Structure formats: structure tokens, C-alpha cells
């Protein structure tokens, strides 16, 4: 499957990101968005999948400093 993901960071200060990826984002996962390390707090399906494509919206919050980032 290909996951078309919109990442939005709580607080509105960060512009967020859209990207396609081959793994489903998971709640609790940490990742790098620009110069910010964030933690995913919610993942929801925005539209029904079509073929091999899944449309997701991931809400994130800034991760605490010093934690390891993935991606």
C-alpha cells in the first residue's frame, strides 16, 4: 500500500507536510518535520482507500527535546 499522509503539528506554528510513504504512520511514532522532532498523537483516515492508495491525516505534537527521532 501507498500511504498519502498529511502531517499537521498542533499549535499552528509549523506548516506541516504532505508526503507519500510505504509504511502506515503509527501513534507514538516520532519523526523529523523540517527542523522539528514531532510525535504522532492521532492518525485518521480522511477518505476511503482507492486501489493501493490510503489517505491519512496525522496529528503531531512537538516531541520533548533529547528524544531520538525517526525518518
Amino acid at each position, binding site marked *: 500500500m*501507498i500511504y*498519502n499522509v*498529511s502531517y*499537521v503539528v498542533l499549535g*499552528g506554528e509549523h*506548516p*506541516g*507536510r*504532505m*508526503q*507519500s*510513504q*510505504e509504511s502506515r504512520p503509527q501513534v507514538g511514532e516520532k519523526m523529523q*518535520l*523540517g527542523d522539528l522532532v514531532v510525535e504522532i498523537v492521532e492518525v485518521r483516515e*480522511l*477518505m476511503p482507500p*482507492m*486501489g*493501493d*492508495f490510503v*489517505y491519512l*491525516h496525522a496529528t503531531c505534537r512537538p516531541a520533548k527535546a533529547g528524544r531520538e527521532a525517526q525518518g
Partner: protein
Amino acid sequence: MVSVEFLKKIALLSGLSDDEMARIAQVCQETVANRGDVILAENAPSDSMYIIHEGMVEVLLEPDKVTPEALAAPAPTTLLALGRGQVFGEMGLVDSGARSATVRCASDNTHLFAIGRADFLQLCEEDTRIGYVVMRNIARDLSFKLRVRNLAWK
């Protein structure tokens, strides 16, 4: 030339056969941009859409298009970053209007595939199934972006 295997991972082309994707590949032109390069400028005429193969771009709005607070700040506002597999510039292919935002490269060695409007529309005329499938997918992509935008207002 862009590979069919890569194009299979692009939602905009979902539902096309390998042969149809090969026809799309023939009209894709590869371009490489580096951090800070402006790929398309707000209010400029639209003549192509882009698929991100590798790297990252930022979508920017000039200050007079956003909030009163932004009017006081001369720098454009970053709306969103787009990464691998994402498409931009597709609105101009649909409505022929001017660019609604500036897109600037956010990482060095960003690889893009551009599809020109004239080539794309000619392909759609020659093969209406390709035209139907891609236009349906463009509508779906715009719907996804609109739903994301709506959530931002909640």
C-alpha cells in the same frame, strides 16, 4: 526517463495500466532543483504540473494573501511542505488560471518530473481513458487537500 515502477506509486496515476503509464512517462520531463530555487511563482501563468521524485518543496503565500499580521511581515508564509510522491501545480492544469502560490525547493538535489499542459491535454484527447482516470485522480487529490484544509479550521 521516469520508470513505470515509480509512477505506480503516484496516486495521481492510480488505475492506469502499465502501457498507459508508459505513455505518461513519455511526457514527463525530469528537472533537478536545489534549496531556495523557485520552481513556480505565485500569479505566474500555469503551464505544467510537477511530481516530486525525491526531496522536498515548500508552498508559500505572499503576505498580502494571508492575514493582517502577515502584512507586517515582509517574508512569505509557508503553508505546507510537500515530499516524495506528492504533486503540485495541478490546479493550473485543470483551470488554466495563474499560480495560486509560490513553490520553492526546500532541499538540495530535489528531483521533479514536470508534465506540460499542452502535452498532457493532447494525451487526454488521444486517449480519453487516460484523461478520465487522471482527471478523476486530480479531483481526488484536490478533495484530499481540501479536507485537510477544512480540518485546520476546526
